[in-house]
């Protein structure tokens, strides 16, 4: 009875959330995208034995697959740490009602089962158990065992984030351990993959061992349950969450005066909110774009695509974070405007954030230079163009009707605050360098064309003050519209 009520409330909460109602088109797009992902996963699930045969020709696919599972669960934990929300606040309205607390807690915990994290892997594991393992009893117990571990991960991360630590450093330590095991494995010193094969092989050899994974799941569930029950008084839990603040100092930056202060403020903004944090995390993925494209032999000839890749790789953070340049500050934009900050300082701080992050991305991706001098040249010129021109372009385009952003929602599938500017932003960023390049390509001077892109970027850096002045003039005229939009929410 109660569960039914709670479920309908949850459903209404989802449907009536402002994000969902505002934009039907975007919801449909998200739906299509999700469908596409599912199809992709299904195909991967059905073909994974072939992939295994190719990558590990000497072992049979099931053993090889089992060998990867521990790593998979590690990655799963890692990404959950950043992306999974703790279900907590929505219970407040029920606490004072004549409702048994235990049933609220059970509901809260069971609710978290229906998450993408828990559901998406099924599209790989189910086809695999059916096709490769033949849908036998062993296959079924194997699948059940794995399912238990996935859910156990779910509860483990809920426990860790709620009661131990949600500091990014925790994940950092975990990532180091992960890398350590991986390198030990690759260098044949200690084979975690063999342990993994053995453990998950047990599920097939002795189906009864599924009880063990179920026990793990149950223990973690119970752990969450007991601790939640002790802490259900809301203020206790919130106080706990609050006190774990990431208070830190960037003393170095404050030496650079107001611009330094503003950069510092923005760094705190990123670290203390979910959405910018996950945007930053996702942008790390773009750094690996080069691995795919720079290497591929049939793309090597097409400089056009490599320029595009260079812009993505060195601008990884700038492009994904910068699409909301002004919106990040939407909740205190009035404060920015009325305090002693000149618009020029404000814009300059933003430009510098971009230049710094583009430089960091460039330094991190320097190893791509090993793939050839042409790649090194393209990467460098794309870096200059990002720093000199695209940084301004982003600030210019995003000043077109930005919206208020909710900072504490995750960024995946979150289209709140997305407007036209975000859609058209990528066009000039990628098109302009390519347009600069085209005349040279026609004349057959490929390398000169690439250098020209870098030169234009360099000019942008030199003429920074002029570009800043242009932007200031634009923002000065637009600031009333921006502030009014942010106030409306």
């Amino acid at each position: 009875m109660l569960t039914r009520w709670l479920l309908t409330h949850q459903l209404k909460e989802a449907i009536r959330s402002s994000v969902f109602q505002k934009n039907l088109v975007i919801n449909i797009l998200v739906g299509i995208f999700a469908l596409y992902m599912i199809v992709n996963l299904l195909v991967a699930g059905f073909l994974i034995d072939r992939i295994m045969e190719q990558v590990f020709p000497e072992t049979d696919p099931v053993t090889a697959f089992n060998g990867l599972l521990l790593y998979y669960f590690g990655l799963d934990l890692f990404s959950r740490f950043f992306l999974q929300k703790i279900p907590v606040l929505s219970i407040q309205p029920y606490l004072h009602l004549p409702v048994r607390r235990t049933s609220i807690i059970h509901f809260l915990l069971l609710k978290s089962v229906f998450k993408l994290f828990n559901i998406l892997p099924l599209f790989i594991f189910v086809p695999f158990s059916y096709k490769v393992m033949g849908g036998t009893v062993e296959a079924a117990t194997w699948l059940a065992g794995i399912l238990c571990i996935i859910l156990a991960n779910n509860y483990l991360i809920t426990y860790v984030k709620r009661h131990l630590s949600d500091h990014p450093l925790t994940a950092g330590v975990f990532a180091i351990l992960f890398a350590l095991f991986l390198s030990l494995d690759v260098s044949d010193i200690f084979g975690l993959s063999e342990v993994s094969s053995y453990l998950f092989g047990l599920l097939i050899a002795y189906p009864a061992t599924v009880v063990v994974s179920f026990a793990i799941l149950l223990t973690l569930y119970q752990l969450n349950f007991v601790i939640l029950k002790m802490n259900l008084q809301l203020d206790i839990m919130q106080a706990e969450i609050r006190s774990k603040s990431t208070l830190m100092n960037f003393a170095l930056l404050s030496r650079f005066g107001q611009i330094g202060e503003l950069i510092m403020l923005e760094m705190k903004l990123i670290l203390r909110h979910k959405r910018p944090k996950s945007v930053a995390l996702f942008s790390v993925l773009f750094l690996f774009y080069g691995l795919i494209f720079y290497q591929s032999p049939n793309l090597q000839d097409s400089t056009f695509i490599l320029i595009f890749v260079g812009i993505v790789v060195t601008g990884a953070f700038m492009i994904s974070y910068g699409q909301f340049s002004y919106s990040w500050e939407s909740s205190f934009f009035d404060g920015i405007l009325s305090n002693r900050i000149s618009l020029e300082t404000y814009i300059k701080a933003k430009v510098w954030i971009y230049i710094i992050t583009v430089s960091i991305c460039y330094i991190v991706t320097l190893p791509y230079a090993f793939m050839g001098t042409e790649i090194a040249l393209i990467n460098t010129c794309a870096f200059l163009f990002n720093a000199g021109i695209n940084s301004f372009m982003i600030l210019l385009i995003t000043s077109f009707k930005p919206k208020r952003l909710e900072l504490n929602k995750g960024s995946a599938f979150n289209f709140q605050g997305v407007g036209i500017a975000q859609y058209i932003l990528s066009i000039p960023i990628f098109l302009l360098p390519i347009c600069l390049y085209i005349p040279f390509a026609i004349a057959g001077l490929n390398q000169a064309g690439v250098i020209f892109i870098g030169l234009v970027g360099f000019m942008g850096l030199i003429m920074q003050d002029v570009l800043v002045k242009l932007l200031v003039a634009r923002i000065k005229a637009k600031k009333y519209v921006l502030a009014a939009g942010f106030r409306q929410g």
Partner: protein
Amino acid sequence: MLLFESLRKNYEGTDAVNIDRMEIPAGQKFGLVGNNGAGKTTLFRLILDLIKPTDGVVWSKGVDVRRTEEWKLYTGSYLDEGFLIDFLTAEEYFYFIGSLHGFSKHEVDERLVRYHPLFNNAILGQKKYIRDLSKGNQKKVGITAALLFEPEILILDEPFANLDPTTIFRLKNLLNEINEQQNVTMLISSHDLMHVTDVCKRIVVLEAGKIIQDKFTDQGTLKELETYFSA
């Protein structure tokens, strides 16, 4: 100090603010009263150059506020939570505002001592972000940040709302004290007729953006206002 000339802000055909001419001399404690939608906040936003007037000019010390940003050097303001950077702790916020005016942390700490009675030990040293503070405490942070650099003009929207009685009492004393010592020009809006007449020497009643009454406070003012608003 402040002069409004044929100032008008029009939203979709209706005037939110429409003031022919009004002057606020330096050091005046200026109170703005009116019902919801009377245009109090709109007027304050116009002074702070947060919205663009449909017509007219706000002159601050003889300079059009839209032309330069000089008024930021001597104007302290707190209108609503949109002024707070809510993911900072109160200290971090004060240090940030202080740094904009060139104060070291130490100087900020010294300046904060004066406001400790307002804080009631619930603001500093809390390891809490501003977003986790109560509404009243958020307001205290905003008002203190506006006062921190000893502005010449102080603009507060509904400063007494959401505050506890003790703090209201202390805040009123503090505002009077600052006005006497530093001759600060104060613009305060309020729904609470008693508090605003207590603090302000001049009261202006707005209705649909227009000035209905403009008078200096005396013993009868509160009664008059009460009669006006109960009618």
